[in-house]
């Protein structure tokens, strides 16, 4: 079993190596058109076959761990009670050893299924989306590397091993956001994403240290089993929250995610919607027994702010992908709220269903963007006849996002709201109020995006030369087959996955949130009916501009952090040349100055020398006489 887990992690990694080194070699090293095509094909085969193999192995693992003998109140423990652990080697570092090992349990298998399914869908989809891109081999190899890193995070049995995977994910995110690096904006977005998450990751690393040194081991099971004092736990989990907020794009470290949409759309689907951003939630769920109430309250407050703020920001955006990005922040905040309410169950349930429907939404958005050649809602409209499959699948996705029955989002969102309702947390009311309002706003922005994309008048005009950062414009009416198939496949779990939670439904509470969602949607629909050409975002009135700018947080960060650091850097360089090096040069000048004094005696005048000599002799003689 553990071998299978190791293979699941290693296969995509091998595919990444093969894709990077082997797709152009041997033969076809030069970059001609034909060689590019061949390299792309080969790279696609590497990547897709590894993804298929990983998925198959994960399903096998799921079958192995499944059974009904599960116990405990966590639903993954119920379905998938089996577990296994294996340690490959232990690295002695002089202090606490790092045990390189993997662990399989219900939670990790469940998340791994999500990761491998979405990864496979995205790999297949990318073949069509990036057809003809000369850098496709490296692109697909990075996706494979990312998949491998994410699976390492999921299966890791040791916190430091987990951290390794955690950072590699960040790297892949950086590389893939910057895939179209000809455009400076993409490059900047990639750097920003990496740095913001890295800032959180440093805190995360320190949190790992705190836990590890307190428990005397970095193994997750040992740490959970250790009876740690509450003070240490609060400190450690607060630090961990830094990393969680960075990776899962929670307030206040969320600003990188909307910018990260500069990457190719399949990447947004995989990394910035379904998997990597969910890793933070996954970690909290994995280490949930360690989180004391104060930390959960902090998480809850952040989540309450984040979900509503991001939903409002989503309502005002014009870029389809940015809408989805803010929606991701908002939905991740739902999961965080569920965790804060003390229910990792609901959080993971929502994580899985969100992974499915948000990946679906992004892939559909990619198809739309592919068709229109622009990200902007104002360039879209009336696409439902041109792209029937995309229309229907995306409708399912939006319905799931709004939480309409019978999609998966309905069940999972209800589970979250229910968990908040029943929680004993001191901030229950805040969370509940925020969650309900957000449900309404979510309905509003989802219906706005849906209406403005697929209804109304068609004003599609193909752009002459697509800017880098947008996909190429195709003449075909529907997206290519490699793109349609993954979309259709993902629509199935997005529609049906929720039924595993049907037994735990609480209908009155579900009805309330459904009503709120429909209320939000209804307002927008009425506004749209009255004026189909105008953007329903006008409903926000004077708040529209701050919402569109995401409450100016980016500018604040630029002014408060980025610029001071840069000017500090310039100051350091000045100091270095003038003060530190100046002291060095000054000492040299001092030496030269001193030597010019000494030079006075060495002026070549023989008389002076003789005089000096005689004076010396005289002095010695006098001295000898006096003390002799």
């Amino acid at each position, binding site marked *: 079993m553990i071998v299978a887990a190791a293979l699941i992690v290693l296969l995509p990694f091998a595919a990444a190596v093969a894709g990077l080194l082997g797709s152009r070699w041997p033969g076809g090293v030069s970059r001609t058109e034909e060689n590019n095509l061949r390299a792309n094909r080969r790279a696609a085969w590497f990547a897709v076959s590894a993804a298929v193999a990983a998925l198959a192995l994960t399903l096998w693992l799921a079958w192995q761990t499944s059974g009904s003998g599960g116990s405990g109140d966590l639903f993954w423990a119920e379905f998938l009670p089996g577990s296994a652990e294996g340690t490959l080697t232990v690295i002695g570092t*002089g202090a606490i050893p790092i045990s390189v090992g993997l662990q399989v349990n219900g939670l990790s298998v469940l998340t791994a299924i999500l990761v491998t399914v979405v990864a496979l869908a995205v790999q297949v989809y990318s073949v069509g989306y990036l057809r003809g891109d000369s850098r496709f081999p490296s692109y697909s190899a990075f996706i494979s590397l990312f998949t491998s890193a994410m699976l390492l995070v999921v299966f890791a049995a040791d916190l430091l091993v987990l951290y390794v995977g955690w950072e590699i994910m960040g790297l892949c995110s950086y590389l893939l956001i910057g895939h179209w*690096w000809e455009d400076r904006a993409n490059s900047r977005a*990639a750097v920003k994403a990496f740095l913001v998450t890295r800032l959180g990751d440093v805190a995360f690393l320190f949190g790992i240290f705190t836990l590890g040194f307190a428990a005397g081991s970095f193994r997750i099971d040992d740490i959970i089993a250790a009876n740690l004092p509450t003070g240490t736990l609060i400190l450690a989990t607060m630090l961990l929250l830094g990393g969680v907020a960075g990776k899962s794009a929670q307030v206040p470290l969320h600003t990188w995610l909307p910018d990260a949409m500069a990457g190719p759309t399949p990447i947004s689907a995989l990394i910035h919607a379904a998997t990597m951003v969910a890793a933070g939630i996954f970690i909290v769920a994995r280490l949930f027994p360690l989180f004391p109430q104060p930390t959960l309250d902090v998480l809850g407050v952040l989540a309450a702010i984040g979900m509503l703020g991001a939903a409002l920001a989503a309502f005002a955006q014009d870029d389809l992908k940015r809408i989805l990005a803010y929606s991701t922040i908002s939905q991740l905040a739902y999961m965080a709220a569920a965790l804060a309410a003390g229910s990792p169950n609901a959080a993971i349930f929502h994580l899985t269903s969100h992974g499915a429907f948000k990946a679906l939404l992004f892939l559909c958005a990619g198809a739309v963007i592919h068709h229109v050649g622009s990200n902007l809602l104002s360039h879209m409209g009336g696409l439902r006849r041109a792209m029937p499959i995309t229309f229907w699948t995306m409708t399912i996705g939006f319905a799931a996002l709004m939480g309409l029955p019978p999609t998966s989002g309905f069940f999972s969102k209800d589970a979250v709201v229910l968990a908040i309702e029943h929680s004993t947390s001191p901030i229950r009311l805040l969370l509940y109020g925020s969650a309900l309002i957000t449900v309404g706003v979510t309905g509003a922005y989802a219906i706005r995006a849906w209406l403005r994309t697929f209804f109304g008048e068609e004003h599609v005009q193909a752009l002459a030369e697509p800017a880098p950062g947008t996909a190429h414009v195709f003449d075909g009416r529907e997206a290519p087959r490699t793109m349609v198939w993954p979309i259709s496949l993902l629509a199935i779990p997005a529609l049906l996955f929720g039924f595993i939670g049907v037994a735990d439904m609480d209908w009155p509470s579900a009805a309330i949130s459904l009503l709120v969602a429909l209320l939000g949607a209804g307002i927008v629909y009425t506004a749209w009916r009255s004026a189909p050409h105008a953007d329903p975002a006008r409903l926000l009135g004077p708040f529209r501009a701050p919402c569109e700018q995401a409450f100016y947080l980016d500018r604040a960060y630029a002014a408060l952090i980025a610029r001071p*650091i840069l000017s500090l850097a310039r100051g350091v360089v000045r100091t270095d040349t003038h003060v530190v090096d100046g002291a060095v040069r000054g000492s040299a000048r001092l030496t030269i100055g001193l030597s010019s004094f000494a030079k006075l005696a060495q002026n070549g005048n023989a008389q002076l020398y003789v005089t000096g000599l005689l004076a010396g002799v005289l002095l010695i003689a006098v001295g000898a006489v006096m003390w002799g």
Partner: protein
Amino acid sequence: MALAVAVLAAFDYSAPERMQFETDLSWIPGLNLRFHLGLDGISLPLVVLTALLSFLCFGYLAGRPSGPSQDATRLGVLRPRALVFTLLVLEFGMLGTFVALDLLLFFVFFEVVLIPMYFVIAIWGGTHRRAAAIKFILYTLLGSAVLLLGLLLIWSQTGTLDMVALAKSHPMSRSVQIIAFVAIGIGLAVKTPMWPLHTWLPDAHTEAPTVGSVLLAGVLLKMGTYGFARIAIPILPEGAEAVAPWLGAFAVIGIVYGSLACLAQNDLKRMIAYSSVGHMGFVLLGFATLTPVGINAALFGNVAHGLITGLLFFIAGAIKERYGTADMTRLGGGMLTRLPYVGSLLTFACIASLGLPGLAGFWGEMLALQGAFQPATALPRPLFLTFMTIGGLGAVLTAAYFLLMLSRITHGHPGEPTTTPPGPPVDTAEGIPDLTEPVAAATESTGDSAIPAPGTDRGLIAHGSDEAEGPAVPVGGGDEFAASAGGMHRAEESGVPVGPQAMVDPGAAVEMPRVEESAVPVGGGDRSEGSSVRVRGTDRTEESVVLVRGDDVVEVISGGGGQPGPGSKLADVMPSELAAWVPLVALTVFFGLWPSALLALTDPAVQSLLGAP
């Protein structure tokens, strides 16, 4: 190198804490000085690293017909043999330092290294090499003087200079230990270099030739840190305890200071040099914790830094060679378009250097921070927690400057900033024909590509220019030839004489108007022979027109309006470079994925080193 591999194979891995391969000969009996050499888990990795890097440098030199010296033409003689000789002496000194077990012998080897390095910088360096070399030697000699004082103090107190004996018993009193530690510490810190004794480093790196930079960063800096592990800490434990907080403080200042300095740098090599200050800060922080994990971290960080920074300097040298400058604003963007392989390798090296887990740089950094989390019991913990936090922020800054640098020079469109010189320095040479006939490149016939201009003597080429893309090397790989066979593009002629000049003085190119430079193609004696020369290929089907505007704005405008195809114009990775880089890349990945390979070697040695006070 072969010897090093043999030693590596013969090393007794079961007992790395013990000295092995000891040679103990009487050297100067009158003073009881002994020629005592030996290897253990601490020195072995460094010895192998030294041998490897030196070997790669020689491979790199041998693979290039035209020697590394950028000033060769200006000096009139290239003296490749002299360079090899100097490097061999350098290697001798470095290896000696790492195996010496006698304090005075250590000092002698330590000094032996300085002289050849001085010559490497002073003879084969860049424009301001004199000043840099003098600064380097004075700085380090001054440090060595203090170091010698410290060593003599130990000698006078204990009567022996044998490190093994000294590490076993510590007869000195606490105050003497502190004084000796401070003296030795300063001496080693100059070499390491520790803030604020680092200012020789950026100058030396910027001016040194590629191989010099590689060895300087890869090995010379390690001699300082090795001294801490071998002499300062085991022999003077009480002194170390007293001074460690200061050492830690200077280390974290160095981390943050180096990173900030990098953020504002414009010169690529200078930036990498400052990044060394930051990385060595992590190494020193590891030492300052005085815990096994911290010292392991420091040793690991040493090796990793040697590999990664060596690689970075190799690549930076290659870039400087191709573009004729290492100034980032002049390099412009789009390196991934123009030199896809060099660009990706640079990306790899930067990512390794910023401490990404899974690559070698991470473990040193992470373990150093871990050491600082729980320093030795005698040290104040809150202080070290502060150090850890600052160090963590420094790690973020490290990521920041590397990524910004990558973003500046590898991303974007190639022609973006107008001040970018269009190609290798040779292109500036090319400016000559282009000045008179702007479309020379396009009209030049394709048949005689890669044939030296008449009157150019072959021997001159062999050592004449730094331009490795000279005729003796398959230019740009088969790629380019295939392209020129395919069609009417890309006429490659070999440009010897002027090339070197332009490339020799990137600084000069900045200072003096370009027109003047190109208008005087015959500045040096050798240069007079080369009249024309490398005409760079045009792109695919587009004509490229080289414009010379004003004084030094040279720009290639692609006629077709599209962007230049990948790999055009500049030769991408050359076989000799690849041969030198691949081992470094492979080892970086290997140690990153398998840190226990190194830790298993150093850990027992470190344990015994700290465990026997």
